[in-house]
């Protein structure tokens, strides 16, 4: 590990200031991703600003503003606490399921909401410094594009990067139209809709998100919705727990009679960002909640997939997973 300075921030303002002053500084939250990457020499900060003790971990109802009636999750709240909070369990069970589908109990106890959103790809070429990787070292090439890419993207990749984004939590947040609240060096607060938070790799795969250096995630806001009764997070993976998704689907429905009034679908494990399945959603709205409709929706979404050498199975798997997640959602999460 490279030598670095360590400062425990007293408050958000000083944390942001310390970071903004040094382009090579990083925030340290739970450390479950950053420290691993530092040990592997992938992340090379020369200063860590420990934000884990900032007073930004509360989960509370939103009383006014755009997301009135929704809830706000503190940027430094622990994943475990978010997943198990009564407000989350009652009103956003999809989010609770998604968080609990990720990592392990021990890691979730350390991991924070903000850190989770900013965790970096698990692409093995990104992780091994002896390998080429445009995300880690722009211009060196993409090791995975012609390499081992079973775990990689089928949507939205570019010739520069085929990595997938790993968070489960963010997939649910994408389906639920969350907003990421950040504070910048000039003291301003920005609200970034989650759909604009993540990026596709394009020519700049080194950028995972549109967050700017020095910006601190203070909260994640969830708007009020009517999905609590009919939502489901399905994660397909190589073992039953403690593995990243081959494909995951966050599905949320509002059904009246047997007609779908609203539908939200987001997918994980398929792209450089949580993949909102807008085409599938469009097909669902106004239709009857039947298997045939679900299949049509899934087909429409997966038709655009562009698999790589080793991940063609993700197209069929994505297709089936959308259908199953929707069925599970209709049944209130039960098979």
């Amino acid at each position, binding site marked *: *590990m*490279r*030598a670095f300075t360590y400062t425990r921030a007293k408050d958000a303002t000083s944390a942001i200031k310390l970071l903004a002053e040094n382009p090579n500084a990083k925030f340290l939250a739970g450390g479950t991703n950053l420290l691993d990457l530092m*040990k*592997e*020499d992938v992340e090379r900060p020369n200063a860590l600003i420990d934000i884990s003790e900032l007073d930004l971990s509360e989960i509370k109802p939103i009383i006014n503003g755009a997301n009135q009636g929704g809830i706000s999750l503190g940027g430094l709240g622990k994943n475990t606490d978010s997943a198990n909070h009564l407000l989350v369990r009652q009103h956003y069970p999809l989010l609770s399921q998604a968080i609990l589908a990720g990592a392990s109990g021990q890691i979730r106890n350390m991991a924070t909401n903000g850190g989770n959103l900013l965790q970096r790809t*698990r692409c*093995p*070429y990104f*992780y*091994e*410094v*002896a*390998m080429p990787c445009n995300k880690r070292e722009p211009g060196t090439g993409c*090791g995975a594009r*012609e*390499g*081992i890419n*079973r775990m990689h993207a089928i949507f939205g990749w570019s010739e520069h990067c085929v990595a997938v984004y790993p968070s489960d939590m963010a997939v649910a947040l994408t389906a639920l139209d969350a907003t990421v609240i950040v504070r910048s060096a000039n003291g301003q607060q920005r609200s970034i809709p989650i759909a604009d938070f993540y990026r596709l790799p394009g020519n700049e795969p080194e950028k995972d998100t549109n967050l700017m250096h020095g910006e601190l995630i203070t909260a994640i806001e969830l708007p009020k919705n009517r999905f609590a009764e009919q939502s489901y997070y*399905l994660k*397909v*993976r*190589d*073992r*039953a*727990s*403690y*593995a*990243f998704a*081959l494909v995951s689907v966050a599905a949320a429905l509002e059904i009246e009679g047997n007609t779908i009034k609203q539908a939200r679908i987001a997918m994980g494990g398929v792209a450089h960002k949580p993949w909102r399945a807008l085409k599938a959603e469009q097909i669902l709205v106004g239709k009857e909640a039947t298997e045939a409709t679900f299949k049509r929706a899934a087909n429409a979404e997966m038709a655009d997939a562009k698999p790589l050498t080793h991940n063609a*199975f993700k197209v*069929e*798997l994505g297709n*089936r*997973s959308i*259908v*199953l997640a929707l069925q599970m959602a209709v049944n209130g999460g039960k*098979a």
Partner: protein
Amino acid sequence: MKDIPKVTGTPINRIDGIAKVTGKAPYSMDHPVKNPAYAILIKSTIASGKIQEIDATAAEKAPGVIAIITHQNAPKLNVKGGLRGGALLQSPEIEFFGQHIGIVVAETFEQARYASRLITVTYDKKEPKVDFDNLADQARLPKDKEKADARRGDVQKALSQATYKVEEVYETPIEHHHPMEPHATIAEWNGDHVTLYNSAQIVNGAQTATAATLNLKPEQVRIVSPYIGGGFGSKGGQWANLALAAVAAKYVNRPVKLALTRQQMVNSVGLRQHNRQKISLAATADGKLTALVHETTTHCAINDEFIEPCGDCSKVMYDTPNSLITYRVVPMNLILPTYTRGPGKSTGSFALESAMDELAYKLKMDPIAFRIKNEPDRDPSNGKPWSSRAMVQCLQEGAKAFGWENRKFEPRQNQQGNYWVGYGVAAGTYPAHQRPTSALVKLKRTGDHVAATVELAAADLGTGTYTILTQTAADALGLPIQNVNVIIGDSDLPPAAGAVGSVGAASYANAVNDACVKLTQELVTKSGKQFFVRPTAAQLMRSEKITDFQTRVDSKPPERAEDYSSHSFNANFAEVAVNKSTGMIRVNRFLAVTGAGTILNPKTARSQIIGGNVWGIGMALTEESVVDPRWGNFVTRSLADYHVPTNLDIGQLDAIFINEKDEHVNTLGVKGIGEVGIVAVAAAVANAVFNATGKRVRELPITPDKVL
């Protein structure tokens, strides 16, 4: 004096359990040494070629750096000393990706690791041979005579005449041992003697190989290995890192700690090789096998050969007049493969036992009945009688206990909600041997209190060696277990066999028993009395008022043991549930019924079997080390990428032992259980997946994409 009840065969708790769970059991890196320096290995980033230049200028100036050792300044070592896998810094040649090319020694581990990254190496690269799929057809005959073609009868004829046959290819991927404790060494010199704290499955082997490599006499090297955090074969033969720790310590004239990181484990301490196995079976309509052909193609290191004996199960499992077992191997730029739990048997049985299941299905025969029909009454490979063989009993008792009668013969008949449920069976075996082992037993009496110390250079991998030896000695001496202290894992102790190939329990327990019997006899002689009922050693110490007494034996297997073919056998039953939409598989239940002779401790034995089952389930469903075919690096370098099963993957596990008395294998009738637990698990699971879904997966691991 009241008799002490026998403890051998009872499920006492592990003697070392409390020390382990309280963190008091010292593993390799925990031994206290004064003022250690820390070393990290530098690894090559190409798989084939030659080092042109190593630029360590920046690294030398990095904080805390004490020394940098490469092939340019390393001492001359004996590359044929017996350590595995080369990589001893003796030349600039690169034979595999991640080969050790240097050592950085610094004041702290992090300083060493940081400095190691400042080193730049220029290479003269060659095209590496790392793509097994492309190279397999260049495979040649093995050099190892044991792997020569073994032919009986005329398989070609039998196959061409048969109506019922299976000819299929089964693939098992590269796997890694990944014990919880990565390989780690503390080296401490004292004059021209070096002490190496280093976990070793074969304590004396580690000593002699390291000594030879360092150009020392064995007595100049001491291996200390009281506890081992798992090894699974990777700590059987030892690897370059052990000698390099000694080299580094000598170089900096300080004790040195050298630990591998998890990522370095993939190309430092061997692997289980990728095996491509073709099985051809032929049978008559009533299910009698007429031919069994097992052809294995695999890879080895560029300059060294190791081949898993994949055909071993096929040699002994079934009665067939015609049989052929072959191996072909292609050298590749990957680290030398090595023994991995159930070496050859677990991979080989996946192929054999899958094929048996396929043929049973074609014959419309129950797979258990099919196996029983082909049960051999002697070892088909050499005609020797079995010392004991409980295969049929294992299958029958297992079928009853598992509820085999509820299995549907046709696949896709058992649907539960969104899952297909299926049952599978597979038969496993592993040879039983006792190896020469010495043991020293010392008795000490204080008043009426007699205590024993038992010493031998045995190994406890976490398997229960301490416990079973305590039990054996307690019974043989007439002492309660609290009065027996077992000391193992040190090359200064009487030499012992390794804890490898399921020989540990048989070799150690028989040696300790022999020593205790001999000691008792010597006490009787010393007393000059004649006894109607022979007293125990403990009683003699008291009655004869002896305060100290000791004896040593060099124990060997019984002379007639070689007249018999000795193996443990087991039947494995799996129930799996396969998600109809996603292909995710869960093993609901797993049962292993094992005949392994005398079970010294049913609790530690059960742990061995279910531990093997869990790894076998990993082999079946999750484990795979993946090589990039362009560069030869592993892309699965951490336990986040190399998937071992989690608790949630494992349903209910059960182990049953057949009450088996083997009078030929060795004095105590112990056959060993370390390996057999894993052997037939993957096939049982794969067969259950077929029974559930109708999908025959012949390529491990059976990940969701393969059953979609």
